[in-house]
């Protein structure tokens, strides 16, 4: 039986399988699957693992997630209050950094795996690894050095500090966030995560000017990737576009997987990557809530026509809001399985 890992490895190596890999990021839907509240769901790693396995089995896509919610990283650095919704992702309600003195006080634990806030994720990872390790890629989400301060102090305060200083506080915070990033990456790898989504809105020219990207973002990206290596690492800018920087990121870091924005021109992204890595086309899943079945199929087909020629292509989703009807998720995935078959391509298209 062909597994998700088989499909992913084939796509990365420019080979073929029955179809391209299809990644579906169902997170909050796990609570729905188990019939419990999001707060109950996210307090137990066993529940998250169980729902991840059930959802993958139910829909047949190729990955599972160890991510609970993005604010978990803030909890690892001392955040004590998360606000839970009944129909959407939990949010950081109490920022760790409220004053400059909090930056000086911020301590990065030596062993992330030993942190109580990591305990449930570790349980989840162990269960996922035992159930599908080596057969279905286990994904982890890791915020880049330059983006992590936004989780610790709020994006507005971080933008103020980043662009207006004081430089010493900014640099101290970035150094600590880099230290955390490296340790967190190590912890996830040791726990069995295969696909490490490196999330960095500051790596997108929707977020920062190209000049800033070259002078400030890119050096931190290089530092991050140099410290942890490229295996399994996926470049992702939190749904923001980054076609304009793919070439330079690829040349400077050697990263081989690019998880585009739904707003990026997919064909252009594929052309820029030019067989040097895996292009991940991401559907605009915010529209999945309202799209008709025909619209969903049409969009998936359009994306496949743009991304599939030449192989080295993965179909993925973005934030997958809780409110997407289950039948729309199924329609999208079935269309991806249908239109994502390599045999739909002319043989010479594949290298």
């Amino acid at each position: 039986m062909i597994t998700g890992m088989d499909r992913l490895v084939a796509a990365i190596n420019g080979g073929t399988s029955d179809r391209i890999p299809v990644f579906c990021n169902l997170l909050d839907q796990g609570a729905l699957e188990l019939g419990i509240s999001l707060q109950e769901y996210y307090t137990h790693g066993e529940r998250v693992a169980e729902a991840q396995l059930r959802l993958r089995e139910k829909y047949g896509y190729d990955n599972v997630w160890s991510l609970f919610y993005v604010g978990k990283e803030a909890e690892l650095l001392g955040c004590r209050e998360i606000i839970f919704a009944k129909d959407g992702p939990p949010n950081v309600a109490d920022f760790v950094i409220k004053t400059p003195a909090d930056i000086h006080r911020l301590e990065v634990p030596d062993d992330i795996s030993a942190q109580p806030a990591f305990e449930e994720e570790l349980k989840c990872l162990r269960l996922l690894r035992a159930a599908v390790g080596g057969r279905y890629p286990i994904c982890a989400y890791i915020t880049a050095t330059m983006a992590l301060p936004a989780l610790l102090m709020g994006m507005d305060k971080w933008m103020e500090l980043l662009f207006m200083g004081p430089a010493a506080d900014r640099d101290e915070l970035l150094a600590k966030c880099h230290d955390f990033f490296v340790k967190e990456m190590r912890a996830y790898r040791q726990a069995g995560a295969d696909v490490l989504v490196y999330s960095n809105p500051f790596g997108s020219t929707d977020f920062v000017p190209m000049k800033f990207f070259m002078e400030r973002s890119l050096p931190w990206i290089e530092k991050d990737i140099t410290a942890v290596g490229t295996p399994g690492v996926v470049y992702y800018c939190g749904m923001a576009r980054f076609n304009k920087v793919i070439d330079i990121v690829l040349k400077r870091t050697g990263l081989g997987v690019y998880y585009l924005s739904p707003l990026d021109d997919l064909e252009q992204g594929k052309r820029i990557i030019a067989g040097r890595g895996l292009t991940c086309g991401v559907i605009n899943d915010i529209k999945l809530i309202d799209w008709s079945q025909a619209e969903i199929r049409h969009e998936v087909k359009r994306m496949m026509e743009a991304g599939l020629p030449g192989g080295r292509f993965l179909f993925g989703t973005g934030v997958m809001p809780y409110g997407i009807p289950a039948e729309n998720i199924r329609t999208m995935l079935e269309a991806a399985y249908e239109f994502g078959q390599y045999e739909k391509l002319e043989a010479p298209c594949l290298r």
Partner: protein
Amino acid sequence: MKLEQLIIAYNEAVFDTDRDKALQVIQAAVNNGVSPEEIVFDVVVPAIEQMIKSISEDMDVNLAQHFMASQIAAEVTDEMVPRFKHSPDIIGRIVIGTAQGDLHSLGKQIVTGCLKARMIEYIDLGVNVPPERFVDEAVAAHAQVIGISAMMVHTARGEDGCLKVRQILEERGLEDQIKIVVGGAPFRFDHDLYKIVQADAWAEDGITAGKVIGELIQEVRR
């Protein structure tokens, strides 16, 4: 420095996200006798308009530039207005906040920064604002517009967000007097979402929001 050169120099600094340089340009202009009124209405506001034009032409304009343009505009306006010969005419008023359950305040901060220079008064209700409060505060402040920012799909579409504000306005017969504008990431990914949540308008970014809010105020006052 002529006014045209001043605008160019200020704009360059703003587009470079260089606050110190932008403020230096303004200070040099003040030292050379450019009036506070000219600084706001002939330099700061045209710079915002230029950024809106660049956005509409799909040029390389990004969130950091929006943020810096708005923060610098607010800073300069705050400093210049007390020096005006006459108090400026306020064109209207908005109450603004993030939807209930939403704690993301960056978009709102960008919007309010730009409103100052446009002489639109705002009452910032903060984050996680209940729908009833949006309406109560708008009525109390005689605001023409309610601005609701939402960064997440469930807060943009949820029953305690814009939909509820619309329902309350309808129940109280206030729809002709108070318009609703929405903004935030989900609206950028679905340009029809503002209709689904029954807002009167949406803005793609914080800079453009000032223009949209100004137009809604004019609509109410017509």
